[in-house]
């Protein structure tokens, strides 16, 4: 019964979204319609939430008369995996996608009371149009509410690889990021239709960009860490098309974040910001298409069952094509904004955008090229990690070199020589630390010192900005500390975010350059050593889990300091599917990790054991966490400023980074 109610709720949401979209786009000039569209957005949210709730209920109660629950759940699964199984499949994840989309729409409706009425109407109309398109797609090509008669007694189990806490966290975070950019997209379209775009517009778009970007950052980092511990060979980024699908909106979103800053502060780069808003969400849609259409597995599987793929391709063409046509048609009417010299904060941010846009293009072409070449010419080539490492790296290096200069340059006109002098300390320190690292450990990979130097340079450069603004070494320490904690939160968030970039770079370089690896066979009691860690194999025990059986190999690991920990690495077989998985054991020492994996048992009774020592590997993800934290920090500050300009009780401070 509740399943049918959920089904009806989704159909109703589709109807309301369609009506809202048409009404809003036709009557956006009439003030009264803003109220209707606000209500429509809230209703869409309630209805889709009800539909999603119905699915969760069916999964939690193991109602296998629901085809989706039968195919992707099992009565023995722990409760958390019964819930996450809802979006561990195509149909359910589309409902989650739509749910987040309507949550975003409802948030605009709820918090957008002080937006100009016509802008609000247009934005909500665009959100409704997207909601209508994707609820329609879900209902007509991927209906999650289909029943089975007679109902099977037991379900087929969720894919064992997905039975992990990662599935509870990763997709919701990632989708929030992905779909959050729809708001920027809708705002861009609204600006193009109404022909009005000003700093107030940017002030509205920036928080949404920031929220989406933070969630996307966390989502990607979480996905990377999940792959690292679950897929079992210690890799953390594979340049897989599915990863690229989420990475491209992130790159474009990072560019958008910076260009929106210029627009808000200096009223410049308007057209480019609009363009980036469209691009970023288009890349999110493209990612959805690539993942959902099955085109990634092979162009040929796509061709053999093209319904879903063709529908979503058509949606893609309509939204992206429509947006760019509108852009081409209307962008000329937007007024050119403020002036600035090439060497200035604005100029630096443009350079940032240029590099990020090129990096996005390199990843985009690398991802799509093999598909297109196969479809058009029939030649099959592979574009894998070595290609992306090279092409992406070549573009990233200069960006990282100039990164610390950006926050130091003043708006309108900067002095690059003065900035260089102020950064000399950071550069010297970075060089010193890098040399120290290599003196202590010995260089093994030729490019590693340069990579490490780059990481330290970015990190120290970020801190240098805070130190410089607090006037450390130029005035007494107490005053400096007072100044430091009195700095606007935006200065802190810039520094923390850029420091996070540096942390990730250091993590990437260190974990690749100093990684130690050991592949061997062991018998119980045998001892091996890796990176000064002494590992004793204790033997394998057979254990029973809730819905799997496991061979658990335990190890004693003695760290250089004498600290002993037990590591348990498992090989599991899931009962329902008979599918084997491995669960690696990861021990963390400071920022470094020891990664143990139990391989297949050998005929002679020995066990294959693989051990990696990955120095400073956690910095990769901690850097991302720092970036996201910085984003939220900036957001917490901005909250006060959102909305219609009020008579300023604000002092100069609340207006963010001072111009000089």
């Amino acid at each position: 019964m509740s399943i049918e109610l959920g089904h009806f709720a989704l159909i109703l949401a589709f109807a309301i979204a369609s009506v809202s979209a048409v009404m809003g786009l036709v009557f956006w000039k009439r003030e009264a319609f803003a109220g209707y569209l606000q209500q429509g957005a809230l209703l869409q949210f309630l209805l889709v939430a009800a539909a999603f709730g119905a699915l969760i209920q069916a999964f939690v109660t193991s109602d296998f008369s629901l085809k989706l629950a039968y195919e992707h759940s099992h009565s023995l699964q722990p409760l958390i995996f019964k819930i996450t199984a809802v979006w561990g499949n195509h149909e359910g994840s589309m409902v989650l996608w739509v749910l987040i989309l309507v949550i975003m729409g409802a948030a605009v409706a709820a918090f957008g009371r002080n937006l100009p009425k016509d802008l609000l109407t247009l934005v909500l109309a665009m959100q409704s149009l997207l909601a209508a398109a994707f609820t329609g797609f879900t209902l007509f090509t991927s209906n999650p509410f289909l029943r089975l008669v007679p109902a099977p007694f037991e379900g087929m189990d969720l894919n064992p690889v997905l039975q992990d806490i990662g599935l509870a966290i990763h997709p919701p975070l990632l989708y929030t990021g992905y779909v959050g950019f729809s708001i920027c997209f809708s705002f861009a379209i609204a600006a193009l239709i109404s022909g009005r775009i000003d700093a107030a517009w940017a002030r509205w778009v920036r928080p949404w960009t920031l929220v989406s970007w933070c969630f996307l950052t966390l989502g990607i980092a979480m996905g990377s860490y999940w792959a690292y511990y679950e897929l079992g060979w210690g890799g953390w980024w594979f340049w897989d098309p599915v990863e690229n699908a989420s990475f491209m909106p992130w790159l474009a979103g990072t560019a958008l974040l910076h260009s929106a800053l210029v627009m808000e502060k200096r009223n410049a780069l308007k057209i480019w910001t609009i363009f980036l808003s469209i691009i970023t969400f288009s890349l999110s849609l493209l990612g959805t298409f690539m993942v959902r259409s099955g085109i990634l597995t092979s162009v040929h599987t796509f061709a053999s069952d093209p319904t879903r793929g063709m529908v979503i391709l058509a949606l893609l063409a309509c939204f992206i094509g429509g947006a760019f046509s509108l852009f081409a048609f209307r962008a000329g009417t937007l007024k050119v904004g403020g002036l600035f010299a090439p060497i200035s904060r604005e100029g630096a941010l443009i350079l940032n955008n240029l590099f990020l846009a090129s990096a996005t293009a390199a990843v985009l072409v690398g991802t799509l090229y093999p598909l297109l070449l196969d479809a058009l010419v029939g030649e099959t080539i592979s574009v894998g990690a070595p290609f992306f490492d090279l092409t992406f790296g070549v573009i990233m290096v200069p960006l990282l070199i100039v990164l610390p200069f950006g926050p130091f340059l003043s708006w309108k006109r900067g002095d690059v020589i003065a900035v260089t002098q102020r950064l000399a300390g950071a550069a010297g320190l970075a060089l010193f630390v890098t040399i120290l690292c290599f003196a202590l450990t010995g260089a093994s990979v030729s490019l590693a010192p340069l990579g490490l130097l780059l990481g330290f340079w970015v990190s120290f450069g970020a801190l240098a900005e805070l130190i410089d603004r607090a006037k450390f070494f130029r005035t007494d320490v107490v005053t400096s500390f007072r100044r430091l904690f009195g700095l606007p939160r935006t200065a802190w968030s810039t520094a923390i975010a850029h420091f996070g970039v540096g942390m990730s770079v250091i993590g990437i370089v260190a974990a690749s350059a100093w990684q130690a690896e050991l592949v061997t066979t062991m018998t119980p009691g045998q001892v091996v050593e890796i990176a000064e860690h002494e590992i004793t194999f204790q033997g394998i025990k057979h254990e029973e889990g809730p819905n799997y059986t496991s061979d658990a190999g335990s190890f004693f690991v003695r760290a250089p300091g004498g600290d002993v920990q037990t590591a348990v690495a498992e090989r599991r077989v899931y009962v329902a599917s008979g599918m084997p998985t491995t669960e690696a054991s990861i021990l963390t020492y400071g920022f470094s990790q020891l990664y143990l994996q139990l391989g297949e048992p050998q005929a002679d009774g020995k066990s294959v054991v693989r051990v990696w020592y990955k120095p400073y590997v956690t910095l990769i993800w901690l850097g991302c966490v720092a970036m996201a934290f910085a984003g939220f920090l900036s957001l917490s500050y901005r909250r006060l400023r959102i909305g219609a300009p009020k008579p300023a009780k604000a002092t100069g401070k609340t207006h963010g980074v001072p111009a000089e």
Partner: protein
Amino acid sequence: MRWLLALVLLFALSAPALAVRPDEMLADPRLEARARVISEGIRCLVCQNQSIDSSDADLAHDLRVIVRERLTAGDNDDQVRAYLVARYGEYVLLNPVMAPHTLLLWIAGPLVLVGGGVVVLVAARRKLKLVTGVSGLTPDEAEALKELEGR
């Protein structure tokens, strides 16, 4: 998105990826190191975007053995790759060759960088001209200014 990859992966091969086995490894650490570097750039043909170095598929095992056989036979790295391409086609290389049909692939990023740079420069110059044209003093203003200066 990771889980989707995992999903796809599991359709492609239904065993977890476990990579190099101890019995495959060469006794000579130098040769083995070269084998590992080559393996990282060779695609496991039955997998989804995995190198033979990280895949546990039987085919990946066979390819790893072939790489090591060729190396032991005295081939240099390029000869080993050429041998694999001759047998399995370009698809086997994770790092595509630089040739006419992959030219666009290789230059896309730099092209956007250079093209974008040119666009930025042209736009900046035009804007500067546009604005200085407007903000220049009218004859009346110039006169008034002169008068003020003269005072």
